């Protein structure tokens, strides 16, 4: 059975009084109530499309083809290979190890980042002496070049470095940077320390939105500092926590400089290699951008999934 919903005297295709209104409604939906806004937003939208969306699109396309870089004008066959590059990437032990390493990195880095940055931000938000000095101190590693900061950590954690001299007989053997158990946690620690300034700043901004009267009420109700922190501060900066978690996951997924410099290319034996480092080796050094792109797409999907799960967990009511 069919139902004709047209008004009784309306022929198919005939214009009705409602049509102009619908067209206006359609244009408003697409262009918004202030179409001029598009002009202002266009430069950044174009920037995003050219700098981010196009390379992602190209990477996805490359990952499904037998692809290698060629000089302009060189005609080569680049057949569609389906999931072959993904299968090759996933069956490569070095790739699997790098993903596992990043998982270890995230398990250490993300909770440590959240806890330390929140605690330090809360402390710096209070009336403590030399507050500006501490704020600047935490921020300096973040704005320093990784290469320079890595040199300091090499001085600290090399075999004859400061830390081992301090530890004496308690120094790990093999030493930190060539110890397959300790290399990745050390990198996680390094990145946590280096990025802390940014996340403290995010939490400091979020803390400004937590009403002082809540702390006063809690205090009148007999809550201690720890109780106030857990019951007012932590829930009060939940949206910032979501941001901090997602940003630290993205930072971790893009790990490259630290294993490249601190552990000499992901050593020992790939114990601190990262997917991006393996992508660099496969794609740039070894001329296999198709496999490198497959690794990149897998990494992107992984980050999106983890970020989505985190968002759902952290923002649930």
């Amino acid at each position, binding site marked *: 059975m069919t139902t004709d919903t047209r008004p009784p005297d309306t022929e198919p295709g005939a214009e009705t009084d409602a049509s102009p209104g619908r067209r206006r409604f359609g244009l408003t939906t697409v262009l918004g109530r202030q179409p001029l806004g598009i002009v202002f937003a266009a430069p950044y939208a174009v920037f995003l499309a050219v700098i981010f969306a196009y390379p992602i699109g190209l990477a996805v396309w490359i990952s499904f083809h037998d692809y290698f870089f060629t000089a*302009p004008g060189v005609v080569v066959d680049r057949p569609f290979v389906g999931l072959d590059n993904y299968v090759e990437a996933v069956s490569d032990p070095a790739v699997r190890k790098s993903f596992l390493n990043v998982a270890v990195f995230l398990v250490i880095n993300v909770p440590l980042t959240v806890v330390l940055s929140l605690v330090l931000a809360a402390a710096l938000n209070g009336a403590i002496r030399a507050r500006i000095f501490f704020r600047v101190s935490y921020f300096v590693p973040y704005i320093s070049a990784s290469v320079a900061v890595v040199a300091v950590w090499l001085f600290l954690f090399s075999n004859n470095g400061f830390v081992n001299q301090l530890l004496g007989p308690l120094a790990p053997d093999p030493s930190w940077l060539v110890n397959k158990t300790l290399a990745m946690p050390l990198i996680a620690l390094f990145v946590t320390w280096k990025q802390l300034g940014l996340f403290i700043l995010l939490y400091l901004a979020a803390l400004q939105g937590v009403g002082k009267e809540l702390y006063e009420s809690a205090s009148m109700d007999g809550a201690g500092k720890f109780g106030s922190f857990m019951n007012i501060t932590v829930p009060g900066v939940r949206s910032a926590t979501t941001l901090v978690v997602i940003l630290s996951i993205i930072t971790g997924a893009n790990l490259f400089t630290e294993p490249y410099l601190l552990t000499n290319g992901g050593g020992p034996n790939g114990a601190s290699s990262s997917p991006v480092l393996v992508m660099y080796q496969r794609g740039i050094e070894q001329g296999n951008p198709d496999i490198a792109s497959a690794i990149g797409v897998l990494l992107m999907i992984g980050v999106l999934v983890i970020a989505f799960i985190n968002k759902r967990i952290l923002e649930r009511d």
Partner: protein
Amino acid sequence: MNIKKTSALGISLVFALSAAACGGDDGGSGGDAATSATGPIKIWLSNNPEEIAWGEKMVDAWNADHPDEEVTAQEIPAGKSSEEVIGAAITAGNAPCLVFNTSPAAIPQFQKQGGLVPLDSFPDGKEYIESRSGDTAEQYQSSDGQYYQLPWKANPVMIFYNKDLMKKAGVDPENPPLATYDEFLDTSEKIVSSGAAEAAIWPAPSSEFYQSWFDFYPLFAAETGGTQLVEDGKATFNSPEGEAVAEFWRTMYENGYSQNEAYNGDSFADGKAAMAIVGPWAIAVYGEDTNWGAAPVPTSAGTSAEETYTFSDAKNVAIYSACKAQGTAWEVLKFATSEEQDGALLESTGQMPIRDGLETAYPDYFKANPDYTQFAAQAARTVEVPNVPNSIEIWQTFRDEYSKSVIFGETEIADALSAAAAEVDDLAGQE
């Protein structure tokens, strides 16, 4: 617009652009017209000061006589490695005409990219290369039988030692026993146990694909009398000689004569290691501050210096296909590698032009600089990296297995070499 709509739009954009990205290539390049075209050209030089000084003088000399074919030289742009920068330039179509720092290991990849001009396409190309470099030239031929690189200069590596540290360790500084593995290990033991240096020798224990050129490969070349890592499309290192070399280095690491953590700096210059595996460039770098000596790399049987092979550590010159004036590029290449310019290069850098009869070609230089004579003699017995498909992947595969078994002792050497050989055979057999 809500988040769902924004996300949907973003994803659509990505997929639309991925479809747009699959555009094909157009056109082609090369041909007789291209190889005879003349005009101004650009060249890239290595970024070490001595080579730049030589390059600038060479360019001035050329430009003085060829105002219509002016050469503009610049250093290779900064990057993680020269190969990475050159590879990107090939893809972008803005590579210069000549790069005087092309690694032989990168040639197969650049060739596959369509980034190189076969030098055989010049009427006198093949003849010039073979008459200049003699039999050595053969190692630089690609699998299609053509030359995509001109073998330019070598830095044949030898064992460089610090005489003062040898003396401190109770070893004869003028003639330290380093010819056989046993002698080398014994000398190393004395250096470390005496506290003369933290390590006897400190090759970089890191995982970059090229690091094996400065630990395993020179000794493998010596042990096998000049065998490349891959020959006839098959790995050669899974052999008693390969195992002997790997076992030697394993003992060095196991006994602490070599360190498995990278030294942040120059271990030889800083006196942390008494020896180093280096080419003749080291004379200019260490010569003034270090009381040094040099010896051939060791072999199990202690081969005489006159029969010992080593790794060449060559850097070559190639003509890149983006070059419009390839005729000029070829003439500049011949000018820059002429007997006169090779002599000037030797004089200013101490690096050995890959030229047949090097010692007899420049007798005055070697008379005035006797320190370089042994490196010149060694230059006649060098082994290059194999010119095979997937060259860099092959070296990375080898390095990974070597690192596991030799540097960190996590796997058996025989198993590691066997696993690497199987993978290398597969890679070398691919197009």
